[in-house]
Structures are given as structure tokens and as C-alpha cells.
């Protein structure tokens, strides 16, 4: 394909084992969303030249680059049905957010292994861009499961790459609707890891952290960039904030690799958050990250998924759009008929026929101008107080 020759090659890391990461029942983190997204990519013909690259699980040694061993042991125990509930709760396990499921260690370690493999493929020069849509579990803490996340795939991948490529500089760009707290805290004093998290303000929303003033510690001051956006922020305001912060931050930093967390839970339809984005945002962000990767680091870009809890109408289309950009393919206008006929009977909501949202279906809220102004104020503060320190 001509486009491939011009602007790089792409790989998709996936296998069925990655779809075991899910909490069962009607838990909102449902691996079906991964299946729906990848089947949509396939039905649209976007996987024809891209067979899945499979990967192994992360080892205990990989995991303990960021997690403490006693936590890993506790997850292993939990997955075998052992462990006292009271002890598990101390590690954030066995809660409604992070229920225990059989073989949970293996499933979680596979996700980390997938993202690690994607990063290694890119760093080895075997491909320019890689995507592992099961990744993006950014809330997982050193010794605690949090917000549907057990092991922190980005944290482990970054730590491993730092060992394998001494001196490497990695930009982690997180546009999930929730703050990328786990990854931020893991590298809070590290000037070789830039963490940018642009999403709904933590004033009300989980996890609550991620104010502009969280900008890093010691040598890492300036390398944690937080842009909290007002609830009900729409595409227009979000994109202008993104443009005001991300390119400048990345240029100032000069990464060797960009790792993006592409949660799509800022969509207006998402049940867990209060933002008002549409598919427009979920094309804009990866497009720009793609451009920046080519300008700044030889195209080296790894994209993961993340949040996205409207699993029928949003995640499949947003992540197909992401894959189209990662793999330099044209995004078709219409959702595939085959895909629709396979899934529409199973979906509790009507499935959209078009890949892109129609702006008319998402009228502006009453306070758009006020919200945009507040967001820009946050952006000014970020530019002045944080970006100046990079």
C-alpha cells in the first residue's frame, strides 16, 4: 500500500487471551467492547494486511518493576479463589470496582504483556506504530487495584523500556476521561517520563486527583502535565485545549517514544463521566499524536485503549478510528452491514449506522462559552506554571 510505504508500518497486538480481562456479570468494564471494536475493524476490511501479533504474559519480574511483590502474590491468590476477603480489600481487590475473577492474575498479566510487546516491537524498529487495545489500565497503583485496573500496563512497559534502553525518554499521553493517576505517581519524580493527562476535572469525578498543581516532584517538576476540563466540555473546547498544550509539551520534552492511552469515555454517551465529546475528538487526538510521533521521534508510537463504557455505540467506532490512524487506512463512512447484522440483535441500544457522529445529534449545551473559558484558564495556568519547567 502506498500510504504504508510513505508514512510507516503498523502492528496490532492481540489474541483471545487478552479478552479474559473482565470482571463478569454486568460490570461496566466488559471485554466485549474489545471484541466489538476488533470485529468492526475486521468487518471494515482494516485488518486484512495486519494479522494479530500475539504476545505472552508479563512475568513477575516485569510486574514488580512497578508493583510490589506482595500485591502480585495477592492477585495470584485471589485468582485461585484463595485469600481472606479482608486482606484482599487492603489491596483494593474484591470491591465492586475490582471484583475477583478466576485466574485474574493470568488475565491481567496478559494485558501488560500485550502492551509491553507492542512497545518492544516499536523500539526494535520492527514497526513504526503499534496498538494494543486491551491496554490502558492507568489507575492501577503500586500495591492496589483501583478503578477497574489491576496491573498498570503502561507503568510496567515504561519501566521495562527504561531498563532496556538506558536514557530513553517516553511521553505518556492520556486522554481518557479519568485522570491517569497510577502512571503519573509511578514516574512523578522522573524527568525522562513526561505524563500528560487531559480529562474531566477531578473535582467530582474519580479519582479526584490531577489538578494543574500536580506537576511532578524534585527533578520531575514539569514532567507531570494535568489539564482538568470542566464537566460537559465538548469537542471544540477539548480540541483547542489539546492543541494549546500537547504539541508544545511534547516538542519541549523531545520523546523517543509516545505511548498514548486512548480511553474513549469522554464521549457524551458514556455512562460514567460527564464530558460531551463525540467521535470527532477520537479522530483528532490520534491524528495529532501520529503527526507528532513522526515529527519528534521517528514515528515511534504505541496506542492503547482505556476507559469507554458505552461499549455498543462508542468504543467500537472510536477504536476503529484509532486503528485506522495507527495503520494509515481510510476510515469508511458507514458501519459495516455485516457487523450491524451480527450485533444489533444483541445490543440493548440502537447501533449508529455511521462511523462518525453527526454534530446535529449533539447540540451544544447551555454553558458552552463559560466552560470553554474556564478550560482555557486551566490551559493558561498549565502553560505558565508547568510547561515552562520542561
Amino acid at each position: 500500500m502506498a500510504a504504508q510505504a510513505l508514512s510507516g508500518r503498523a502492528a496490532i497486538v492481540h489474541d483471545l487471551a487478552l479478552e479474559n480481562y473482565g470482571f463478569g456479570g454486568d460490570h461496566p468494564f466488559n471485554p466485549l467492547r474489545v471484541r466489538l471494536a476488533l470485529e468492526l475493524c475486521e468487518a471494515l476490511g482494516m485488518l486484512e494486511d495486519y494479522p494479530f501479533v500475539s504476545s505472552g504474559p508479563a512475568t513477575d519480574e516485569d510486574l514488580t518493576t512497578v508493583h510490589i511483590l506482595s500485591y502480585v502474590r495477592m492477585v495470584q491468590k485471589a485468582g485461585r479463589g484463595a485469600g481472606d476477603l479482608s486482606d484482599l480489600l487492603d489491596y483494593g481487590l474484591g470491591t465492586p470496582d475490582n471484583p475477583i475473577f478466576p485466574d485474574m492474575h493470568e488475565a491481567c498479566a496478559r494485558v501488560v504483556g500485550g502492551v509491553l510487546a507492542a512497545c518492544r516491537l516499536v523500539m526494535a524498529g520492527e514497526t513504526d506504530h503499534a496498538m494494543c487495545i486491551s491496554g490502558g489500565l492507568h489507575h492501577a497503583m503500586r500495591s492496589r487495584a483501583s478503578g477497574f485496573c489491576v496491573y498498570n500496563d503502561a507503568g510496567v512497559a515504561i519501566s521495562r523500556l527504561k531498563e532496556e534502553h538506558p536514557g530513553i525518554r517516553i511521553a505518556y499521553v492520556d486522554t481518557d476521561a479519568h485522570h491517569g493517576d497510577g502512571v503519573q505517581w509511578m514516574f512523578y519524580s522522573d524527568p525522562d517520563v513526561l505524563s500528560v493527562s487531559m480529562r474531566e476535572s477531578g473535582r467530582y469525578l474519580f479519582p479526584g486527583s490531577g489538578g494543574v498543581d500536580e506537576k511532578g516532584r524534585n527533578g520531575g517538576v514539569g514532567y507531570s502535565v494535568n489539564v482538568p476540563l470542566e464537566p460537559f466540555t465538548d469537542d471544540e473546547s477539548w480540541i483547542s485545549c489539546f492543541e494549546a498544550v500537547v504539541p508544545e509539551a511534547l516538542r519541549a520534552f523531545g520523546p523517543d517514544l509516545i505511548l498514548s492511552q486512548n480511553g474513549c469515555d469522554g464521549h457524551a454517551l458514556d455512562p460514567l463521566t460527564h464530558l460531551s465529546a463525540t467521535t470527532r475528538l477520537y479522530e483528532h487526538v490520534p491524528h495529532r499524536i501520529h503527526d507528532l510521533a513522526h515529527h519528534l521521534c521517528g514515528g515511534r508510537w504505541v496506542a492503547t485503549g482505556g476507559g469507554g463504557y458505552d461499549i455498543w455505540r462508542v468504543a467500537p467506532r472510536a477504536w476503529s478510528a484509532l486503528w485506522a490512524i495507527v495503520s494509515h487506512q481510510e476510515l469508511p463512512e458507514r458501519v459495516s452491514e455485516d457487523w450491524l447484522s451480527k450485533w444489533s440483535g444483541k445490543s440493548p441500544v440502537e447501533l449508529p449506522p455511521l462511523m462518525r457522529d453527526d454534530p446535529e445529534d449533539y447540540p451544544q449545551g447551555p454553558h458552552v462559552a463559560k466552560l470553554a473559558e474556564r478550560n482555557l484558564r486551566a490551559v493558561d495556568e498549565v502553560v505558565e506554571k508547568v510547561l515552562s519547567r520542561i
Partner: protein
Amino acid sequence: MLLVKDSMTREIVTLPPDETVGTALALCRERRIRHLPVLMEGRLVGIVSDRDLRSATPAFGDQERAAALQEILVEDVMASDVVSSLPDDPIEQAANTMREHRIGSLPVVESGELVGIITSSDVMNALVYLVGANEPGSRMEIAVPDRPGSLAGAAGVFGMCGINIVSAAMGPTREPKEEGAVRERVVVFRVDTIDTTEVVGYLEEAGYSVLWPPRP
């Protein structure tokens, strides 16, 4: 919990009254502090803030500044009528004292001896810890009737859903939205969950009005 002694700084930087303003200002800068208790023979005789020190000396660039920094003494600019606090005072009392006197710190004195200092920043830290804002959680606002058992009832709904409460703060009463209803209080819960949708439903079923988050 929430006593002055839980939040105060115990390692106190102090000065004698005959120290120069120049030295005092340098100390504020080096130690990154704004309030210096003044001690004479171990006894608290005054307190001086960086603002007192600066407003007593000529501005940067003024030729008389260097001399003034050496000549003016701490005792010339300190407040000698010191408002202090006790280690066992509740922190809200210390906060209120600072607010009423419009000052930023209180020396903490026990049996005539200076044992610590509490500043407005310490009060802020206590607030952050109190509301659990340093722990992951979602913030929910719920209006409950101003009647016995309302708080327990709302809290019980979280328990029923298996969601841990990180903090709870209840405000003063306010007029209800609906005419004729009983007065209500707003409770702010921080809860350890990313997904509040289910619990919002149960709270509303139980008759509580959830002010935030909005229903999707």
C-alpha cells in the same frame, strides 16, 4: 483526631528579639517559612511574619535598604500581643481564631512553653486529609432530610453496594427544594469507586436526592 497537635509543626524556627530584620528575612527565605515566633529566655514574647519584616524595611533598590536591614531589630516590628493556641484545641477553633484575627499562624503553647506552630497551610492540609482528597475516589453530593437516621440511611446504601466511604462531611441545614418538605442538609461523600451509577439509583430509590453526579 483534628486537634492542633495533630497538624502543627513541632520543629520551630525561632528568633531572639534583638536579632536584625535582615537575618530574620534571610531565615524566612532559607527555611521557606512565613512566621517566626520570638523567644526571650525560652519565653514567647512575640511573633513576626515575613510581611511585617518586609513592610518595615525600604524596598529593593532603595539605597537605605542595606543599612535598615542591619539596624532595625525584630523587637521593633514584632507583634508582642501574641494570639496563641493549645495543643489540644480542636483545629477548627484554631482556624476560626486565625480567621477572626486575620492572621496566618498561631504559636502553640503548653504550660508556658512554646511547643509548636500551626499555620493556615497546616489547616489546608488537614482539610485535604479530612475530605480524603488525597485518596482516589468520586465525590458525591446528596441532600438528606434534617431528621434522625438520614445520614446513616444514606451511608448504609453505600455499605449495601459494597462501596467504601473515604470521607463524609455534612453541612448546615437549608431550605428544601420542594415546598412543604422538611429542611435538608447536604452531605458530601467521597467514595472509593469509579462507577457511581448503581449507587445513585439505589439512593434515589431510597428517597435521597443526589445533587451530583447527574444521571447519564
